[in-house]
């Protein structure tokens, strides 16, 4: 890995988001958190990321709408949709809107890291 992987975690659950950011940082990943869709979009105006981990169920703006706007704004960023719903409905919806993959909460970190890496590899291939 020459360049450093940059990941944005979007989740309104503070405890979850912060812990995930901490664990990714411990693994030498540039990780940042956003507690809502609008905040995530605001951060994206200044900074760029390789992968975004996006929660579906959030107040204000839900994950699906946030995904749509992220893809409008920066289509090159790969998005992994994370849902607490035991339903694939939101996941498939996300895939249709251009998400790289979707995962069910609670997802073990190892699985999440694998998926993040796959998404990053895809992005790098596309960038070239």
């Amino acid at each position, binding site marked *: 890995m020459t360049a450093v992987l940059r990941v944005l975690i979007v989740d*309104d*659950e503070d*405890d*979850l988001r912060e*812990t*995930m950011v*901490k*664990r990714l940082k*411990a*693994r030498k990943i540039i990780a940042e958190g956003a507690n809502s869709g609008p905040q995530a979009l605001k951060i994206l105006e200044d900074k760029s990321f390789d992968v975004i981990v996006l929660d579906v*169920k*959030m*107040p204000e703006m839900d994950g699906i709408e946030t995904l749509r706007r992220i893809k409008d704004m920066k289509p090159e960023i790969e998005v992994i949709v994370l*849902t*607490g*719903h*035991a*339903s694939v409905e939101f996941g498939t919806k996300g895939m249709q809107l251009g998400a790289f993959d979707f995962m*069910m*909460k*609670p*997802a*073990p*970190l190892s699985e999440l890291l694998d998926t993040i890496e796959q998404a990053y590899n895809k992005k790098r291939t596309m960038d070239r």
Partner: protein
Amino acid sequence: MRVFDTSHLQKHKATDDQPTYEHVYDYADSQANIARIRRHFIKLRTRLILGLVVIFLLPSTLLSFYFHFQFAHTLKKSAILNLAAVAETQKNTIDLYLQERVINLYNLLHSREFTLSPTPENMDNFLQSLKHFNDGFIDIGFINPQGIQTDYAGPYPFLRDTDYRQESWYQTLVTENRNYIISDIRPGIRGIHHFAVAIRQLIDGHTYVIRAALDPEKLSSLLKTISQGKEVESILINRQGQYQTLASGQKRFPDHSDYVPSHALTSGVEEVEHGQQTLFVAHAWLKEPQWALLAMQPMSTAQAGMQQARLTLLISLAGFSMLISAIIYYTINKLVDNARRMAEKGQQLEEMLAHAAKLASTGELASGVAHEINNPLAIIMATSGIIRDMLNPEFGLDHSPEAIRKELTTIDTAAVRIKGITRKLQDMGRSRTLSTTHCDVNALLDETLARLKKVEFKTKHIETATRYLPDLPRIPGEPNALRQVFSNILINAADAIDQKGTITISTAMQESMVSVTIADTGKGIPLENLKRIFNPFFTTKENGKGTGLGLSIAASIVKYMGGTIKVNSVQGAGSSFTILLPSKERSE
């Protein structure tokens, strides 16, 4: 798990112009619904049968009445005409008979043997030739211009030399210058009933009269002969109403008739009351003498044919009506039965649909539970993961006891959240088996409000106003369950208020239901959320702040108690929840 929410079965869907969404508990179960359907169809069937019977039978009854009266009228008319014809014919026959007797006398007068001074032998011959014409002749006599009967032949020889000047028929004949006369029936000089035929003849300026007596029995039997087989009784009366023939059952002359027809009418028919029965009486006046022929027929005899026809009509009408009624009854029964079966089937399908919807709702609930539990579960897993990271020197993280303790607190908080969810799910299940007492709703509201003011309302400036109906009847229910209903709605009301606002609680009676209205001046509920607020796990609150079970639990409790919750909301102005609870135990 049982799911109580039926809001997705709501028939009146909230629309743009109807921002009221009702969460109504329909406690009519399947059996009651079917019983209701049956009652409805029994009523429908009765109405249809009555309606059709009236529509079919009324006109035919009216029509048959009309025809009956028309028929009776026609029949009576024909009976009268028939009777008049009989009277006319019989009168003509009698007239002819009497005229013939007069002609017999004239023939005698003009015969070659006739002489004004006959010998007794001549007289006998004259009588014999009269009797030859008609055996009704009894005797014959010549009356000279002085009114004395000079010659006589017959069974009463003492009548010779009788002076007839005082006899009324003789006086009429002579003074009125008539050619002939027929007398009434009377005993006369001989004291035996007879009637006389007399002719007047002027010879050399002198008035001679030839008279003959006739047997009235012959007249009676003639009348009887010509009336035979006509169901008519005929008699002759004179102007005074005295019988000139023997009526059946009468033995003696002269009997008197109660009825004397007007002499002005030569013929006619009238209805005459006679004892118990009504008679049709047709009359016809004879030319000479002035007798009337009366042909009488009891009305019952005249209408006997009609009675028969009426009976036939009545029986056929009754049969026809019964046939129509039977057809109507059978057809309607069959149609209504079919319709009822369809309705019952529809009801069953609806119930199956409701059941299916409940199952779907169970799925919804399961997915809701999963989501609510998966979030804190994810926190627990991530946090235990970071502790493991901390303990791994490879990552070089802060692994001081304080740092680890902080992470453990995060795990505890998440676990408490899960516990809260499972407890509320248990509450939902428990709400089905409530122990019932009599609850004072006003007191329960006060209690709940006081408790909430201590904690939940403290962070905001919420004013509360209560408008209670003073003597609200106690309602059957479980106090803790009702507290939970009020508390859940009041917490939502407080949450809807941003910093400052008012919550108004009022109680009232609505027919037999106790109504509790909790109104807030909060932000209101968007229309798209209005129909979902009673669904389990539906919440607009931030993660971890609301479970989406509060209103669902409140609705299930109210529904269990046989009540309803209704919500009315105006965005930006506030919401008002109205709970209706039955004030009496349901009788089931």
